[in-house]
């Protein structure tokens, strides 16, 4: 299982703040995980339609889409930040 977290408009569009997911066979990196999520429904497809504005953190560290994903990971998807 991995833990997925969504923030800001990704959360609103997907309609969930977090969920647990059994990593499907063959998925080993962030890019593969996102491709899988895009097939899970209209909200996911909409939220993940423009990957230029999607940032990823694995275990609370920023990572590129090529970063590996493994069971036990906490994977967060969110837009560019706007704090401060």
């Amino acid at each position, binding site marked *: 299982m991995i833990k997925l977290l969504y923030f800001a408009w990704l959360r609103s569009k997907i309609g969930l703040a977090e969920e647990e997911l059994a990593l499907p066979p063959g998925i080993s990196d962030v890019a593969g995980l996102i491709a899988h999520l895009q097939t899970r429904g209209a909200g996911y497809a909409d939220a993940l339609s423009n990957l230029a504005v999607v940032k990823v953190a694995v275990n*609370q560290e920023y990572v590129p889409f090529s970063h590996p994903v493994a069971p036990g990971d906490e994977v*967060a998807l*969110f837009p560019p930040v*706007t*704090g401060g």
Partner: protein
Amino acid sequence: MTIRVQQADFDIGVELAALTQGNPGIGGVCCFTGLVRDLHPQADEQAGTVCALTLEHYPGMTERQLAAIEAEARARWPLEACLIIHRYGRMEPGENIVLVACASAHREAAFDACRFLMDWLKSKAPFWKLEETCRGTRWVASRHSDEEAARRWDQPAG
């Protein structure tokens, strides 16, 4: 070296007094406060006046990232003390959002470190602003200039 992520407001005077208290080696403190503005940052006239902002963040990652960047600032500049407070939750125009303060023997280090932390915070700390206007709510878009400002610091200053 203090980092706080909190809903409550803060008292700048109290925070700065605590920062410098008992350290007579401090010659200067540079402090930045960010406040909720009533104008939309993109100056879009259609957007109308902002009546409130809700700050969402990523608990856990926020503190971890703030601690890392604060350690980076202390490695780059001779700081005597350093403070980052960032609020989350709903705030109205005029309210404090963030406080960054850096204390050093000399002013140059205090100014540079404070600006470095703010630039970094604006482009990397996992906070998101949801604006409320008379027309409804919308997520604030990131500013390209904030990412550029943060990139300035990728190479240590010459």
